[in-house]
């Protein structure tokens, strides 16, 4: 018990220095927590995916469409319960900076496949009834303040021209992981227009969403679909929704690795700052350690005093940092909200934070401890400052 008292007294002997060190640890833990949350936000799409949904796309790459005629062949495959399709539109709302995902969907079946998008019932019916209708997630509404009945114009990049849509529905996610930043409209609307302006591009879809009857058979069904179209003009690549999202994440792999490296650097920076504080503290108290030794204290007792003090300081900083991470993540999530669907701090981050704080506390104490335990009593008593 007296050890703890001693630690607390010692730690706050230099109030300014200790509080500055605690502050820097708080900042570092906060930064680390935010970086980890940032990384997990990349993976949010994969986490929210359903195990029973498969994505079928052109095997060459995503930019190549699939013919609409594939749909009947896929339906016949054993294990397929339901299917729908979409096509990437890549329209621009006023300016390129206003980026949000927008695509054409085979509306009725598509929404049935995504029970996590929840509409007020009348709005869903209104959307399905209006071919020029579109529906968007609540996060986009927060950003652009559209109201039901508004006309939203997107400038096509893949499909030239200005396209007008009437806002008919606003959905929200069933839980936090559902993506609330999407913009859907009717594939029929796109297709009918293409039939008039660019007939060679009509009756094509970007990808099929296939629901399987039993998630444990997903791999088997995926293989069966790809086998059906092997050696055809439009070979397919079918994978689970999760694998589909992960392939996007892995393309940005270098950026994620860079962010991970940076979070390692944060840890090293706190080690340097804390080690510095401990080194200064130990240097000033060399005389005291010599007195302790004269009184008969062993090396390990002195060591435990230094290590304990170091751990105490890092743990206080760590607690502040953990407490501040969720509100900071919330603010950060508001700023970059349109790029990332979810910005949540998970429990693992908090455990890792604590682990790091312990690690930093131990590392920072190594050199001072070594110096303090090695010093000869006479030298220690003689030395000043």
């Amino acid at each position, binding site marked *: 018990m007296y050890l703890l008292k001693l630690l607390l007294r010692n730690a706050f002997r*230099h109030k*300014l*220095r200790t509080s*500055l*060190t605690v*502050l*820097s640890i708080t*900042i*570092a833990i*906060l*930064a680390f927590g935010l*970086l980890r949350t940032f990384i997990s936000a990349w993976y949010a799409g994969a986490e929210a995916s359903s195990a029973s949904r498969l994505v079928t796309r052109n*095997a*060459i*790459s*995503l*930019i*190549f469409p699939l013919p609409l005629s594939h749909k009947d062949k896929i339906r016949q495959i054993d294990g397929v319960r339901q299917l729908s399709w979409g096509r990437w539109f*890549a329209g621009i709302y006023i300016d*390129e900076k206003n980026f949000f995902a927008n695509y054409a969907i085979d509306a009725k079946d598509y929404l049935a496949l995504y029970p996590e998008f929840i509409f007020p019932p009348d709005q869903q019916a209104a959307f399905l009834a209006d071919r020029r209708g579109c529906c968007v997630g609540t996060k986009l509404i927060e950003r652009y303040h559209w109201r039901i009945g508004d006309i939203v114009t997107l*400038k*096509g*990049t*893949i499909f*030239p021209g200005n396209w007008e849509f009437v806002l008919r529905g606003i959905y929200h996610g069933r839980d936090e992981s559902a993506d609330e930043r999407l913009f859907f409209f009717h594939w029929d609307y796109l297709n009918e227009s293409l039939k008039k302006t660019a007939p*060679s591009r009509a009756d094509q879809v970007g990808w099929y969403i296939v629901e399987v009857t039993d998630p444990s058979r997903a791999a088997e069904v995926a293989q069966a679909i790809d086998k059906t179209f092997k*050696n055809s*003009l439009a*070979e397919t*690549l079918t994978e689970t929704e999760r694998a589909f999202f992960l*392939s996007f994440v*892995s*393309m*940005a*792999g*270098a*950026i994620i690795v*860079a*962010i991970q490296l*940076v979070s390692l*650097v*944060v840890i*090293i*920076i*706190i080690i*340097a*700052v804390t*080690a*510095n*504080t401990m*080194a*200064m503290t130990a*240097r*000033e108290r060399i005389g005291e350690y010599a007195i302790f030794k004269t009184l008969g204290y062993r090396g390990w007792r002195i060591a435990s005093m230094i290590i304990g003090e170091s751990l105490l300081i890092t743990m206080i900083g760590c607690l502040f940092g953990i407490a501040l991470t969720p509100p900071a993540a919330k603010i950060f999530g508001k700023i970059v909200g349109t790029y990332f669907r979810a910005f949540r701090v998970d429990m693992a981050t908090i455990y890792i934070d604590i682990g790091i704080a312990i690690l930093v506390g131990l590392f920072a104490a190594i*050199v001072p401890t070594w110096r303090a335990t090695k010093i000869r009593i006479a030298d220690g008593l003689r030395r000043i*400052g």
Partner: protein
Amino acid sequence: MGVPISYSFRNLWTRRLTTVLTASGMALVVFVFAAILMLAEGLRKTLVETGSYDNVVVVRKGSNSEVMSWVTRYQASLIETQPEVAIGADSQPLLAKEMVVLITLPKRMTNTPSNVVIRGIGASSLALRPQVKLLEGRMPRPGLSEIIAGRSIAERFKGGGIGEILRFGMRDWIVVGIFDAGNTGFSSEIWGDADQLMQAFRRSVYSSVILKLRDPSEFERVKERIESDPRLSLEAKRESRFYAEQSESMARFLRILGTALTIIFSLGAIIGAMITMYSAVATRTGEIGTMRAIGFQRMSILGAFLAEALLLGLIGGCAGLFLASFLQLLTISTINFQTFSELAFSFTLTVDIVWKGLVFALIMGFVGGVLPAIGASRMNIVESLRTS
């Protein structure tokens, strides 16, 4: 001024451990700061060098990359007849009708798939891009299923090496050559005969038309004529500008990320410097009193401690930049979200980044040292002598 300053320098040496720890904290911040600026600069440089000022890219109106663009054969031949197009040595116009698509290829190391640009080229494509040099093998012969791969594709993707075979579009394509295009986006592309590739992908339209201007100053005229022609609905851009635009949003993303990170990190390092300087002042109270007693002015004391903090920052800054300069040996490849294709580029250190890094380090030193230094300069002579 001489004595207090040399006194400060010697102090940094005496408290080596503290100096090293504080400076290394700052060095890491400068390292991260420089690394992210170098990354954004490398990306920008790669894409800017890809385009040349004399060339014009013609794409469909509203498309921001070649992959999204459509140019019909009819439109392409209308552009071919523009008088501003330069004439090559073989008395043919220096103009290439190209097709650009993306294909998914697995990487050699990890087997993870990524999007790679395939460019269908014409007879003049190589002449239009003097930066592209054939390293090994030969050019693909028109009419055959042959392709050549850029250096970074050959190194990083399965089936990209010379003599290897890639299968797409229901055909086997043999890699007959490797080309090097220096630090440009072309190094991350695969080239083949445009007509063969269009057949394989069942496409009847080109993606873009590249032409060299007879006289670079005639750009405005040809741009105006192409864009006002109702048969075309195309737009013309200088090639250099076309590629520079493709780096913008990614470079902006990196810059915002980098600035946010370095601001947070620098707070940590500034606090580190502050701790060091406060303790430097605290442990030397007696010495400060002595100096004041023998006639040094308050300003000299302030200057001495500020100089110490700035020197600490300078050491940190130099160390950080020294570490960051090694990053130039690395090549990074990531997806460019604007074109959705894989691009390889390297960290690029410029004089500008060196200056920014050093100024940043000095600012960190200054902010960390200014309060302790003011505190030191305002000490009362008698009291400070008594405390020692």
